[in-house]
């Protein structure tokens, strides 16, 4: 079993190392944008930093965390050794080489195109090849997850797949669908351009393909948090999961409605037809359903726990919950950030209101709250929860963990709430410096400084997190206990067959993707959209 711990720890440490580095870049960017004088500010350095922050956070932290957590879940939830660990290591090494290549390209100034690429700006091939390797590594993980579940099902006929594993495989399957778009963009358009094989690019097509990936990738990052909500938080709170079925349904709805909705990133683009934008907007609206189902189910699970611990009355169960446990505290904080981030998301969701906030700090605030807040705080909690099993020691105290979680929450709120306001005022994104002599912009200054303070709190929290993992787990433990997930109120004895596998959902996703993306992709070829000339951003070259 030790081999599982090694594999999981390797992944998680790569994830958290990238995370810590990215936090430094993030704070410096906010400093550069603020009215306060900041060191090293040049456009080159700024966009290099934005690229490194985005790639580290969105590609490295997430992919490695999801993979590591997935391996851990597969073995602990299925209670049998993970098949093909060697392949897991191969995937890990491919991903690590890829992350190193991409980082080399970025930090040497050869890839300041941000993590969303923006062709026809074209970076060094090392950047794209590196990201391709990370994705290929994650594909190996997907296959291993699917195989692990299939083997378990063969060995356990007529028994529902444990919810944690069902969620993990749902994520693996969604990720395979998700990566198809960006893989097509990189392999057929961007990488050939970067290698000098083609000199012009159909920019509209690259944007359509990237949008295929751009929304579900966020749900790929988010899945571990939801798996923790359903299968870890109720147990940590001392209760039971209110409904196992809702967990399954939510995971399936994520597969269905996170994929055919990427156009909400392109609402303001000229190349996507209005009707298709409406279709994808409609489907985007439905993504709120699984989240709201989850909120209710988990809150109800917490109510069970609180009442079991003696909570009385309508809300008496809330103070009765064991908030001193990191997983419980993180879930609560996560829900608060999900509330604000989700509210911002509702505004982004419609193309009317989107016009008010597109590419402003409002959007930055939204995804920092959802991903950087609600999801990453659960990454912390998951790490704290599984660390004893990984390193064989209990934490000597949970106080530093709670301080770290609170710091993260306060930092995230302090940083992102002003961003909403600034976004509504029109503060636009991806700017190295603002001209604070302009009266419109001058009024933003104080709020930018407030958000910078939030950023500093976040950095402090990030460093404390790494410290906690390195030094807090010192209390010796006699034997490694088997890791247990939360139980539902009643043992899961029966589940519709279609919620015990993914066959039906794959067919429906194929149908939805065809409806949502079929013509918009074909359009690029039918109308023969004119190409734009490749613009090389390769300062290190």
């Amino acid at each position, binding site marked *: 079993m030790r081999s599982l711990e090694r594999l999981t720890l390797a992944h998680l440490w790569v994830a958290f190392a990238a995370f810590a580095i990215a936090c430094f870049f993030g704070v410096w960017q906010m400093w550069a944008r603020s009215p306060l004088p900041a060191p090293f500010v040049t456009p080159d350095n700024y966009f290099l930093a934005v690229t490194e922050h985005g790639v580290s956070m969105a590609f490295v932290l997430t992919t490695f965390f999801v993979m590591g957590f997935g391996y851990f879940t597969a073995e602990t939830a299925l209670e049998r050794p993970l098949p093909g660990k060697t392949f897991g290591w191969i995937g890990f090494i491919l991903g690590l080489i890829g992350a190193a290549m991409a980082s080399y390209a970025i930090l040497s100034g050869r890839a300041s195109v941000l993590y969303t690429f923006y062709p026809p700006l074209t970076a060094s091939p090392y950047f794209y090849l590196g990201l391709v390797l990370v994705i290929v590594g994650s594909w190996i993980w997907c296959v291993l997850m699917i195989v692990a579940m299939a083997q378990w099902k063969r060995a356990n006929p007529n028994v529902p797949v444990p919810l944690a594993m069902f969620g993990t495989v749902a994520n693996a399957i969604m990720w395979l669908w998700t990566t198809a778009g960006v893989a097509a963009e990189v392999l057929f358009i961007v990488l050939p351009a970067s290698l000098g094989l083609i000199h012009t690019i159909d920019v509209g097509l690259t944007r359509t393909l990237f949008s295929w990936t751009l929304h579900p990738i966020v749900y790929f990052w988010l899945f571990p948090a939801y798996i923790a909500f359903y299968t870890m938080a109720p147990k940590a709170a001392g209760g039971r999961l209110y409904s196992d079925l809702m967990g399954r349904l939510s995971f399936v709805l994520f597969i269905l409605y996170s994929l055919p909705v990427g156009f909400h990133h392109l609402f303001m683009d000229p190349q996507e037809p209005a009707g298709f934008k409406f279709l994808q907007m409609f489907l985007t609206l439905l993504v709120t359903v699984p989240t709201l189902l989850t909120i209710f189910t988990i809150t109800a699970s917490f109510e069970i726990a609180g009442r079991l611990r003696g909570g009385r009355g309508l809300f008496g169960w809330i103070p009765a919950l064991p908030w001193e446990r990191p997983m419980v505290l993180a879930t609560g904080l996560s829900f608060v950030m999900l509330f604000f981030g989700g509210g911002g998301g509702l505004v982004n969701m419609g193309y009317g209101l989107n016009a008010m906030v597109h590419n402003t700090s409002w959007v930055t605030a939204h995804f920092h709250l959802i991903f950087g807040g609600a999801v990453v705080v659960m990454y912390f909690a998951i790490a704290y929860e599984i660390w004893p099993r990984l390193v064989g020691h209990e934490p000597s105290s949970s106080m530093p963990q709670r301080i770290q979680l609170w710091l993260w929450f306060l930092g995230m709120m302090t940083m992102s709430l002003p961003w909403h306001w600034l976004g509504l005022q029109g503060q636009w994104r991806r700017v190295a410096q603002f001209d604070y002599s302009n009266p419109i912009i001058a009024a933003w200054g104080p709020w930018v400084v407030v958000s910078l303070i939030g950023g500093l709190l976040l950095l402090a929290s990030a460093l404390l997190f790494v410290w906690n993992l390195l030094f807090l787990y010192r209390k010796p433990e006699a034997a490694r206990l088997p890791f247990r997930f939360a139980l539902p109120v009643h043992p899961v004895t029966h589940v519709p067959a279609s919620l015990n596998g993914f066959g039906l959902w794959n067919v429906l996703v194929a149908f939805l993707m065809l409806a949502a993306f079929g013509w918009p992709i074909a359009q690029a070829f039918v109308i023969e959209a004119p190409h734009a000339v490749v*613009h090389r951003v390769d300062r290190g070259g």
Partner: protein
Amino acid sequence: MPSFTASIGEVSAMTQPPISEEGQDGRFATRAVVTVIAIVVIAGLLGFVLIPIAQGQSAGLSAFQAICRSLGIQPGSPAFRQPSSATVAQPVSMVAWTPEVIERLHRPNEENGSDIAANICVSCHIESGAAYDPKIPHMEGQSAFAIYKQLHDFKNGARVNELMATIVQNLDDDQMADVAAHFAVLTKGALDPRTISSGDPDIVRLVEFGNSARGLPSCASCHGVHAGGPIETPTLSGQRKDYLATQLQAFAKGERHNDIYTRMRSIAAKLRDDEIEKLAEYYSAQLLFRPQD
């Protein structure tokens, strides 16, 4: 979604074995399929039919036109008529960066290029040349795209210079590309202003930062090596001071106007005379080489 949960309830209620059997699950699966299809149909009906027709009516568009616009088959919004445009093209440069031109610049006929250079260009553009004059720009290590564009503009009169116009009149597009590419690889290097530390701090700021208040992007954002700017951007480092200053002044006054979409005119017009002098001096003083890809 309600029908999902509703049918789960029914399935669960009926189920004896742990995983429900085909017939019972079939009911749930059918509901799921019907729900998804219904959602797409409703969204499609609203987005492709009802909304565009309703909007198109007030704009005087036929239902067919409105639907075509929502599908993207016809250009325009279903809510209003496309504006008309009656005007004639008055291009400031006739250069078009087609893939063929770019390909030729990447893979020129080298022999052809060096022949033309040796027979026509060297007398003025090489320091040891017979007709050398410090107001004439360096060509060695200059971007092939920049040289090609200027040759093309001289030929078409977009950039006015009688001597150059006469010289390039007999060159066709391929020949211009060949000779441009010839000069580009001559020194195998461009000069990097970032490698020098001296210089007026205000000028260095303009070069590296630009000035947001004046709407001046940094010089380096286009003129830096592989900075991602317009591909016809010339390299400035090591260029002759007199030439740089003269050209900036010409752009500022609008005497030179072959920069597409006033990219250089709009910037030069915002620079003070002393800034132009110092910028020209700054770039001319950059002597360190930086290898180019």
